[in-house]
C-alpha cells in the first residue's frame, strides 16, 4: 500500500520525489546516529549480561525514536526555508507546493525508508529456504512483520502531517503528542511476540492519527460523506 501511495500521489511531481528522497535521507541519518550511540553503548558494556543488553536495546530504541522526531523537526525547518525560496521564484507569488503537501511527502519519505529498512532483509531471506518459527518462535513472524511495517509507514505519514501542522501553528502539544505516540508504538513492539499487545493498539493508534490528520488537513465528516456518496 505504501508503494501504491507513492505511485499515485508522488511519482507525478518531480518536486515531491525530491522531497521524498530527502525525507528518506534524513531518516537514514537519524538512524545512523542512533545506531552509533547504541553501538558505543554496547561496546562499552558487558556482552554477556542479557538483561543489560536488553536494557541497552530498549534505550537504543527510545533514543532512536527521539532522534527521528528531532530530524523530522530539522527537516521541517529546511522545508520552511525552501518554501520561502520557491515563493520568491515563482511567477505568481505563491508556491507550487503547499506545506501540507510537503508534510505528507516528508511523512511518506520517512515511512518508506523505515519500512524498507525493517522489511527488506526479511523479504530477502523469505525468498530462501527455511521454515518459519521452527525453533519455537511464532509462526506468524512474517505476517506480523508485514503488518507492523505497514502500520508504521502509515503512522509516519500521519505523524508527518500532524507534526508539520503543529509546527506551523505553534501548537506544541501536537508535537508532543506525535512524539509520545511514536514512543508508544515502539514501546508496544516490545510486547512481541505477543502480537495482540502490539498490533492491535498500533492499528488503533493509526486510525486515531489518521482521523486527526484528516481533520487537521481541512477535511470533515461532511467532506467524507460527499466523497463517498456522490462523486461530484
Amino acid at each position, binding site marked *: 500500500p505504501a508503494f501504491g501511495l507513492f505511485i499515485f500521489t508522488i511519482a507525478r511531481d518531480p518536486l515531491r520525489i525530491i522531497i521524498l528522497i530527502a525525507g528518506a535521507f534524513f531518516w537514514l541519518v537519524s538512524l545512523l546516529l542512533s545506531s*552509533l550511540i547504541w553501538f558505543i553503548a554496547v561496546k562499552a558494556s558487558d556482552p554477556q549480561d542479557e538483561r543489560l543488553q536488553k536494557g541497552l536495546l530498549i534505550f537504543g530504541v527510545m533514543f532512536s525514536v527521539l532522534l527521528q522526531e528531532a530530524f523530522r523537526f530539522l527537516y521541517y525547518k529546511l522545508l520552511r526555508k525552501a518554501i520561502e525560496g520557491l515563493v520568491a521564484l515563482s511567477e505568481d507569488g505563491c508556491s507550487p507546493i503547499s506545506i501540507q503537501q510537503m508534510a505528507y511527502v516528508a511523512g511518506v519519505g520517512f515511512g518508506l525508508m523505515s519500512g524498507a529498512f525493517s522489511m527488506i532483509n526479511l523479504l530477502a531471506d523469505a525468498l530462501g529456504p527455511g521454515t518459519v518459527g521452527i525453533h519455537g518462535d511464532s509462526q506468524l513472524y512474517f505476517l506480523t512483520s508485514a503488518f507492523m511495517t505497514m502500520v508504521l509507514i502509515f503512522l509516519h505519514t500521519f505523524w508527518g502531517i500532524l507534526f508539520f501542522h503543529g509546527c506551523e501553528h505553534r501548537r506544541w502539544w501536537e508535537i508532543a503528542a506525535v512524539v509520545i505516540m511514536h514512543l508508544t508504538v515502539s514501546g508496544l513492539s516490545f510486547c512481541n511476540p505477543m502480537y495482540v499487545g502490539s498490533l492491535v493498539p498500533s492499528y488503533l493508534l493509526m486510525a486515531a492519527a489518521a482521523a486527526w490528520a484528516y481533520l487537521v488537513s481541512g477535511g470533515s465528516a461532511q467532506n467524507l460523506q460527499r466523497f463517498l456518496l456522490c462523486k461530484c
Partner: protein
Amino acid sequence: MIAFMNNSDSEEEPCNERTSLMSAESPPVPSYQDGLPASEAGEAQAHRKRRAGSSRGPNNIAAGEMSGSGVPVRESILENEEEELTLKYGAKHVIMLFVPVTLCMIVVVATIKSVRFYTEKNGQLIYTPFSEDTPSVGQRLLNSVLNTIVMISVIIVMTVFLVLLYKYRCYKFIHGWLILSSLMLLFLFTYIYLGEVLKTYNVAMDYPTLFIVIWNFGAVGMICIHWKGPLQLQQAYLIMISALMALVFIKYLPEWSAWVILGAISIYDLMAVLCPKGPLRMLVETAQERNEPIFPALIYSSAMMWTVGMAKPDTAARGASQQTWDAAEDGREQLRSPSHAESQMSETRGPVPTRPVTSLEELEEEERGVKLGLGDFIFYSVLVGKAAATASGDWNTTLACFVAILIGLCLTLLLLAVFKKALPALPISITFGLIFYFSTDNLVRPFMDTLASHQLYI
C-alpha cells in the same frame, strides 16, 4: 583471466579514457535561455523547488553561460527572465537524471545479486598490479594505495593525451578511438555478460542465435550512440554500457583498492575540473572557445528536443536566420557535471517539435536538458554494486548507498544552479556514498539485526 584482460588491453584504455573523461566536468555550454518568453505557463507547473531554500539557487540546471558569439542582443534583454525560467526547470531535470542513474544502479545490483560471475575473483586488471592477497593488513593497505596511484596516473595520462589531441585538432584520431572503444564495449562485454547470465539461469543458447543477437545489439548501439537515433534508445544504450563497464570494474578491482580508488577519483575529479590548469577544464574551455561539440558517446543527455541542424559547416549553407538559430541551439546544451556537454545537437535527440520551427524562442523553450557524464554513471554504479556485493548487511547497505548517491546528485545539481559552471558530479555523491556505506555496514547493521530478531520497531 589475466591473460584475457591483457589482450583486451587496448579496449581498456579507451574505456579508461572514457571514464576519466566522464569524470571530467562538462563544459558549461552557452545556453540561451534568454529566448524564453513568458509563455511558459505550461512550465509553471514545473516550478520546482530543490531542497535548499536559497532564493535563487535551486533550480537552475540549465546553468550555462552566455556564449559571446551568437545572439548578444537577446541576452541583455531577457537575462532576468532567463534566470527565472531556468530555475523553474530544476526539479524536472533532477528527476530526469535520477531515473537513468537509478536504472543503471538497479541493473548493476540485480546482476551482482544473481550472477555469481561478477563476484568471483578471477584476476586483476593490469592497471592494478598489486595483489591484495597479502597476509598483513599494512601490506594490503599499501598495495591498495599503490594500485590507486597507478590507476589514477593512468587516467591522468589518458585525459591529458585526449586534451592534447583535442587542442591540436586531431579529431579523426579521437573519433576513431572512441568508436573503437565503444565497439569493444558493445560487443565483447555484452557477449561475456550474456554468456554469464545464460549460464546462471541455465538457458541453452546456440551460437548462431547468439551471434545474430549480439550483432544486432551492437550495430544498433553503434549507430545510436555515434550517429542519430531516437533519444530513448540512445539513453538506454548509454545506461547499458555504463552498467557493463561498472560490472567489469566491480569484478576486477580488488576490494580495498576499489574503495580507495573511488575516493581518489572523486578528489581527482574535483581538482581536474576546478583548478585552472586542470585538463578537463582546459578541454571545456577549448570546446567553448571553438563553440564546438565535444565528443559524442561520452555524455548522457536528457534533453527533450530534437534539432535537425547540426553544429557543422553544412548549416552555413543555410540562410543567416538559420545560422543564428543553429548557433543558439548549440548554446542550448545544458551542461552538466562531470561530463562534456555536447554542444552538438546531434547528441540531443528528442521528439520532433510539432510546431513549426519558426521562432527561436519556441525552440529554445523546448530545448532543455541536463547532461551527465557516463563516468559518473559508472562510478555511482560501482559504489552501489560493491555495496551489494560485499556488504554483509545486504540490502540495507545498498539502499542506504543508493539514497546517499541520489542526494549527492541533488546537491550537485543545486550547486550547478548556483554557480552556473561546469561542476564535478563525483565528489559529493561519492563522499556521501562512502560515508553511508561504511557506517551502515558497521554501525547500523548490528543494530537493525538485533531489532529484527526481537521484532522491535523504531
